[in-house]
Every structure is written in C-alpha cells, then in structure tokens.
C-alpha cells in the first residue's frame, strides 16, 4: 500500500517547468533600455546637428564663409560648448551605443544573421551620425 502511494507520488511529480527564461527577460529589458538610450542620444545629437545646420545656412547665404571655417570660428569663440557637443558627447554616445549593441547581440545568442539589427538599427544610425559629426569637427 505504502509502495503504491509512493509510486503515485512519483508519477505525480513532474520536472519543474520554467515558462519564461531569464535571458528572455534580460533581452527584453536590454532592448527597451537601448530604445530609451537612443532617445537620449538623439536629444544630445540634436544640438550639434542644429549648429551644423545653422552654419550650413550661413555659408550658403554669406559669401566667403564655409562650414569648416565657421566651425573653427565657433570652436575658438565657444570653447566649452564646442568641446562638449562636438567631442565629448559624440564619443560618449559612440561608446554607449557600441556597448548596448554588443549586449543585445550576446543576449540574442550571437546570431549569424542580420535579423537582430531590426532591434538596434536606431543605435547604429546614431553611431553613423556621431562619426560624421566628429569628422566635420576634426576637419
């Protein structure tokens, strides 16, 4: 009788099932975090992009001026603003976005295909624009 009960208990026992894997949660959290970071990145990029747009318009309407000379003039006049928005912020943004993409890549199981880019294309775009800003500033 006791043996039968024990067998019943054994058959009733099942393996513990985990319906949601921990790394799925981590991946979802990382993707949401990456989107939040990219929004902050766009706000910080909007300042140098606005300056570049204004200087481009200036070079278009004022003869004898160019974007590069205007940027150099700005770097001389507003040393700290240009340093923060054209050098420090872009470098920080590149670093943060690379680390974010790397994290999502590893959490997605290091996929060989480019499908995972669907989640991080915004971060890649930020890196590309940031590199362009750095190139313009360093010319």
């Amino acid at each position, binding site marked *: 009788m006791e043996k039968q009960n024990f067998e019943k208990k054994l058959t009733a026992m099942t393996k513990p099932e985990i319906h949601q894997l921990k790394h799925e949660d981590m991946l979802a959290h990382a993707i949401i*975090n990456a989107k*939040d970071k990219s*929004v*902050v990145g*766009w*706000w*910080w990029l*909007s*300042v140098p992009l606005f300056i570049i747009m204004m200087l481009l318009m200036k070079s278009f309407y004022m003869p004898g001026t160019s974007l590069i000379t205007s940027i150099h003039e700005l770097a001389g006049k507003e040393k700290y603003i240009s340093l923060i928005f054209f050098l420090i912020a872009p470098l920080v943004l590149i670093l943060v976005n690379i680390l974010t993409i790397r994290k999502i890549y590893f959490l997605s199981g290091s996929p060989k295909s480019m499908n995972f880019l669907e989640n991080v294309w915004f971060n890649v775009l930020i890196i590309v624009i940031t590199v362009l800003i750095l190139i313009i500033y360093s010319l």
Partner: protein
Amino acid sequence: MKFPWFKRIGIFFIPASAAGWIILLAGIVFAIYSFLDIDGRSHSVSDTLMNFVFMLLIIGAVYSLIAYLTSRIAKK
C-alpha cells in the same frame, strides 16, 4: 526614493510622479526665462528664435538625460 519618475512615450519622457512634474515645470520655467532673456538682447525675430531653439535643445537634452536616469527600474 520611489522610481521611476518618468515614462517614455516616443521621443519624449513624460512625468510619472510628483518629482517628475517638478523637473518638467522647472525646465519650462527656465525655458521661459531664457526666452525673455534672449528676446531682450536680440535685434530681430530670427535672432531670438535661433538662439532660443538652441537653448531649448540644450534644455531638452539635459531633461532627457535626467529623465532617462530616473526612469530606470531597479533590477530585482
């Protein structure tokens, strides 16, 4: 402190607590103050708008950074 203070909707961080509303109001008050200050020193409408938009973007950048840092939920 009780987080999160903000929640993100699109490209904006919307306050989700009293502290968030205080930060947003402080940003708006500072934006109005800078508009009046810039307007008092500028010589034309375009001069005012160009400088004000620049200041507004800086305020937006700082606000979004604060909002991002205070909208993160602590890991369990």
